[in-house]
């Protein structure tokens, strides 16, 4: 009963995402964050960030990979299939209609205006989703530095996002895995126990 509700919600949400996110990959982030992180708490902020990392570093269509990962996390392999089918129904039906009716599409100025409007709004939505996730992740000066460096790498140096993630994985492993670096989080007193991931692990 509970499980079938999960499938229904997955299907419905990705149907909406498939029908309303214009502009690809990141445009669907605000919707996913709202539905699965803020509203239903099926996924934590950290897990959402991990999903983006995986989706960025594997080949294929970003929206498809994100729906598969979230679907899998919520309800296993059947959940992944449910999510991806929901995601693809709107575009496949639209393109099927187009293939049979085949009308040549020109650069329609009305559609262009609509798009500039949507992108302006989506900029605000992605910014807010980024702030929400960033609050959980950027907890010390090193993480802020890592975020700034990766932004500069993709923006100014035009480095592929997948490569940035792989490089960050190496940096993380070296600093925190090999050298066991433990950095004081913002707003924590010197004597206060640092609630880092390692701290938790060492206790057990």
């Amino acid at each position: 009963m509970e499980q079938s509700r999960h499938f229904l919600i997955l299907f419905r949400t990705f149907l909406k995402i498939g029908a309303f996110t214009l502009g690809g990959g990141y445009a669907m982030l605000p919707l996913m964050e709202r539905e699965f992180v803020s509203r239903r708490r099926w996924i934590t902020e950290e897990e959402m960030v991990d999903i983006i990392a995986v989706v960025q570093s594997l080949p294929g269509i970003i929206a498809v990979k994100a729906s598969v990962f979230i679907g899998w996390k919520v309800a296993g392999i059947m959940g992944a299939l449910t999510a991806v089918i929901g995601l693809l129904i709107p575009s496949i039906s639209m393109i099927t209609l187009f293939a049979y009716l085949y009308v040549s599409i020109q650069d329609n100025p009305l559609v262009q205006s609509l798009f500039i409007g949507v992108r302006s709004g989506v900029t605000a939505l992605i910014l807010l989703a980024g702030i929400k996730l960033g609050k959980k992740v950027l907890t010390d000066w090193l993480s802020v530095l890592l975020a700034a460096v990766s932004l500069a790498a993709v923006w100014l140096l035009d480095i592929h996002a997948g490569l940035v993630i792989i490089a960050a994985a190496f940096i993380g492993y070296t600093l925190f895995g090999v050298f066991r670096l433990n950095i004081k989080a913002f707003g924590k007193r010197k004597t206060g126990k640092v609630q880092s991931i390692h701290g938790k692990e060492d206790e057990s």
Partner: protein
Amino acid sequence: MIFLQLFWTFFKISFLGFGGGYVIVPLLEAEISQNAWITQNEFADIVAVSQMTPGPIGINAATFIGIRTAGIFGGITASIGMILPSLILVIIVAHVMDRFKESRIMQSILQGIRPAVIGLIGFAVLFFASMSIFSGSLLDETFSLSFKGLGIFFLILILTVKFKIHPISSIALSALLGIVLFHFL
């Protein structure tokens, strides 16, 4: 036979397509000119339609080419070919991450990756802004600001923070405002 060929072609494209639409388009173009499945003009239209409709370009192209060459089942075969590599790879990676989520190695890797992802989200904000709120480069004199775009940006920002309106309502409102401000004014 055509079904197998469609499936394999799109499976291959999807498997090589690191980085989404921008990488998949040139890969598709190469396959299309080789197989003569659809004309260059039809392909240009597919790219245009994909930019105007919500779907991912890879799926749209696969569906269209599949239907054109082998009818509705061709479309389905091509789409499945396009999805399958992602489906398999993501589920494998998700399993591995889940299995080793407590290990120090996985934790340290994630500790490095998570801030980088926030940087990438920052870039996505700049990317969308550069196609709506400003044009040219942020860093030199080619920069120019669009006050209409900026107006929509701040309106959505306020409506979302203050009134918690749903992202879909935001997108619909932005589309409407875009038509009114950029087309009729």
